[in-house]
């Protein structure tokens, strides 16, 4: 299915980038990127909004009833 293939492609790209960054190609790893985003007020606000949206979306608005 195209949607699932697109998600797998995004995950593979992220994994490849993380490996390249850890091999020292001058790019940030995921943890370094998060840390850099967290340093600035706008980045911190964005991370908070993403976190809050994910929680509300996954656990209140979207989820199925537990089995």
């Amino acid at each position, binding site marked *: 299915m195209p*949607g699932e293939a697109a998600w797998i492609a*995004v995950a593979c790209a992220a994994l490849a980038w993380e490996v390249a960054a850890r091999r020292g190609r001058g790019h940030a790893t995921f943890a370094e990127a998060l840390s*850099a985003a967290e*340093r600035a007020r706008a980045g*911190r606000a964005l991370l*908070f909004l993403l976190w809050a949206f994910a929680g509300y979306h996954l656990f209140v608005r979207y989820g199925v009833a*537990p*089995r």
Partner: protein
Amino acid sequence: MAQADAGARCRARAAGWSVTVAGCLAYGWWASGLAHFSPAASAAVLAPVGAVAAALALGASQRRAHRGTLRRVGCWMVLAAAALGLEAVALALGGRSRRWPSLSHLLDELTAPRPARSVAFATWLVLGALLARRSLGRPGAARWLRGRAGAR
């Protein structure tokens, strides 16, 4: 002496994180049993959101990003934009489409059993605790906490 102090600090930090993770798991187990779309489920999510928002507001000092940061993290921004775009398209198509499932739909299927759901909830809480903890270590929050301790 300094080594013993460092060891004690390390043990205290590990104990603190163990308590935090255990608390998050217990809270996640309780919250994952609440009926969806209910006021109780909303309150269970909004309470930690409010706590983290307060921690972020307390530690609102700003450090400047290093020179060249944008170039180093550019690829992650592109990947995040791609994921958000994909999610937006999937949600616009109804969110539960078989051909274009949203990430939340995929996660929702994975976390349908209550134990998986409570672990997902606990993971979300721990991520919020990490965000709040880093913020509470900032000078603004440290000054406020010292002021509260001095007032007692």
